[in-house]
């Protein structure tokens, strides 16, 4: 069968179930693409032998009842995989081979999928362009020399380039939604606590959440169904029944109220994004939703709040990398303190060090109240904004990003302008609510642009239904010439 790899996950599963294609053929097609796609640098570790063994095993004794029967999947290299090295994009974990499996990946495997490889990402998920990885920049398949976004940049790049049928990322401030928007793919950050954080390399524990990255909205529903669920090993996991998102998926969005927050109209935002937003409103209105103007008055404080809370939690989480228990150890220094300091200096990259220093500073004696406690107070105000808005509306529509994908190197030396990428995505993390990016159009340079839907806590189904309507009516066409294969 020709070109199985440009099909959606749902279509591939359908073909496998109808016995029109074998899992091994699917796996081989993706392996071929990955071999031809080296220029994108989206993979850190390949697991081809494992994938082929598992696919053959599936074909010998297929179980078509599971959600992801015989599907090879590459995942962000932030998920610990038993016996397969897990680097978090860092020199610190360059040779780290976990002897346990993250709950999320274990859930995927128990639904019939198997590991194809580990995908590049910003170091410890800190970045918005995939330029901070120890394993090098990832390239956006949409255009050479362009960033795929970050931190789940390898995931977005591999997905858009047909190197994996679907994937998973993690999102602390936009790390799923921003790369999805930059690559014309679908990305969902679930409600905090819906997907287990156990076995994911930690960045900022009160914000981190794993989620699906897919080619279509139906695929997204399927992946969320497979990965979510209660996990006693994560103390913040929500204990509730699993949802059948894909079965309940419907285009009927009549009567849903959609809020348009005026604060998301920022200075310097290109007209094309403004127009895209208008188009999104028009589509939802034509499908029977009510469009309502709302206000989220503390929006402008979300990014400064994030850049206190996230580094503070990161500095605490990353204290564990001391060169003793696992990971890199420097050979320099004669005493214990020197060993710690040299290990962390040589093992971490510049952006990670920068954030550890910010975090350490805001938590240090004399500054704790002025910065950290202050940020936690403002975080409550930001959450209250959403609580108030959701008494009037069912979901909120905004742009996903203030710009399309930018050039490699363009923002690398200016942390603030890099941080501004996440201006629309950070508020949902601070409030712990679900949000997803859906591709809707292209800018004049043919770069994809996405719109973001933000929902009530556990309102994933509503988001998926709205996204399905937008997907159908926007007529977004993936427009990627496979230049890297030449």
């Amino acid at each position, binding site marked *: 069968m020709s070109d199985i790899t440009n099909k959606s996950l749902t279509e591939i599963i359908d073909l496998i179930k109808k016995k029109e294609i074998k899992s091994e053929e699917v796996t081989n097609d993706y392996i071929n693409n990955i071999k031809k796609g080296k220029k994108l640098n989206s993979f850190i570790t390949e697991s081809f032998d494992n994938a082929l063994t598992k696919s053959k095993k599936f074909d010998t004794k297929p179980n078509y009842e599971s959600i992801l029967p015989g599907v090879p999947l590459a995942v962000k290299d932030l998920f610990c995989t038993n016996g397969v090295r897990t680097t978090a994009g860092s020199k610190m974990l360059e040779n780290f081979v976990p002897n346990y499996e993250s709950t999320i990946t274990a859930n995927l495997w128990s639904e019939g999928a198997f590991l194809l490889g580990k995908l590049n990402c910003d170091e410890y998920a800190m970045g918005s362009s995939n330029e901070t990885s120890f394993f090098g920049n990832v390239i956006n398949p949409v255009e050479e020399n362009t960033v795929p976004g970050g931190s789940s940049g390898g995931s977005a790049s591999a997905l858009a380039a047909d190197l994996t049928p679907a994937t998973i990322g993690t999102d602390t401030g936009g790390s799923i939604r921003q790369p999805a928007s930059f690559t014309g793919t679908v990305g969902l950050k679930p409600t905090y606590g819906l997907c287990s954080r156990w076995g994911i390399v930690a960045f900022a524990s009160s914000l981190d959440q794993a989620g699906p990255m897919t080619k279509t909205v139906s695929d997204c529903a399927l992946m969320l169904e497979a990965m979510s669920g209660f996990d006693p090993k994560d103390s913040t996991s929500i204990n509730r029944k699993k949802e059948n998102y894909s079965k309940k998926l419907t285009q009927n969005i009549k009567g849903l109220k959609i809020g348009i927050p005026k604060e998301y109209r920022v200075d310097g935002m290109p007209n094309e994004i403004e127009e895209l937003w208008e188009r999104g409103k028009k589509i939802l209105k034509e499908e029977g939703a009510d469009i309502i103007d709302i206000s989220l008055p503390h929006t402008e404080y979300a990014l400064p*709040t994030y850049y206190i809370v996230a580094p503070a939690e990161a500095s605490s989480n990353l204290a564990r990398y001391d060169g003793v228990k696992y990971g890199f150890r420097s050979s320099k220094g004669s005493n214990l303190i020197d060993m710690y300091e040299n290990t*962390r200096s040589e093992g971490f990259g*510049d952006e990670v060090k920068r954030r550890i220093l910010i975090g350490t*500073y805001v938590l240090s004696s004399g500054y704790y109240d002025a*910065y950290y406690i202050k940020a936690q*107070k403002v975080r409550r*105000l930001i959450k209250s904004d959403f609580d108030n808005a959701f008494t009037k509306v069912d979901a909120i529509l905004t742009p996903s990003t203030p710009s399309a994908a930018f050039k490699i190197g363009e923002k690398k030396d200016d*942390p603030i302008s890099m941080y501004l990428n996440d201006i629309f995505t950070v508020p949902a993390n601070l409030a712990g609510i679900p949000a997803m990016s859906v591709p809707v159009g292209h800018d004049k340079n043919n770069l994809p642009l996405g719109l973001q839907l933000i929902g009530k806590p556990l309102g994933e189904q509503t988001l998926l239904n709205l996204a399905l309507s937008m997907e159908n009516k926007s007529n977004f066409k993936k427009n990627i010439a496979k230049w890297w294969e030449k």
Partner: protein
Amino acid sequence: MFIDKDKIKHTAKLARISLDENKIESLSKDLSDIFNFIEKLSKINTDKVSPLTSILDHSLRTREDKVTDGGIREKILENSPSKNEEFFIVPKVIE
């Protein structure tokens, strides 16, 4: 707020990261820029607001205090850069 070189050095000490002297200047600039950006928060009055530490409605679950997966010393030692059969090995601490 300006984060001068001494503050950078002190914070790096707290974070147990040794810094190259030639990087301290640029870190001072970057962190000063970031703190000027963060400074915006001081504009809001939060006197009557309580800090939000967790967005979850429920408090953290507790469990019965019993061993669930003990006896995995080898697994725990497996990834250590320096170890013997029973312990992690670190540079000498006591003279």
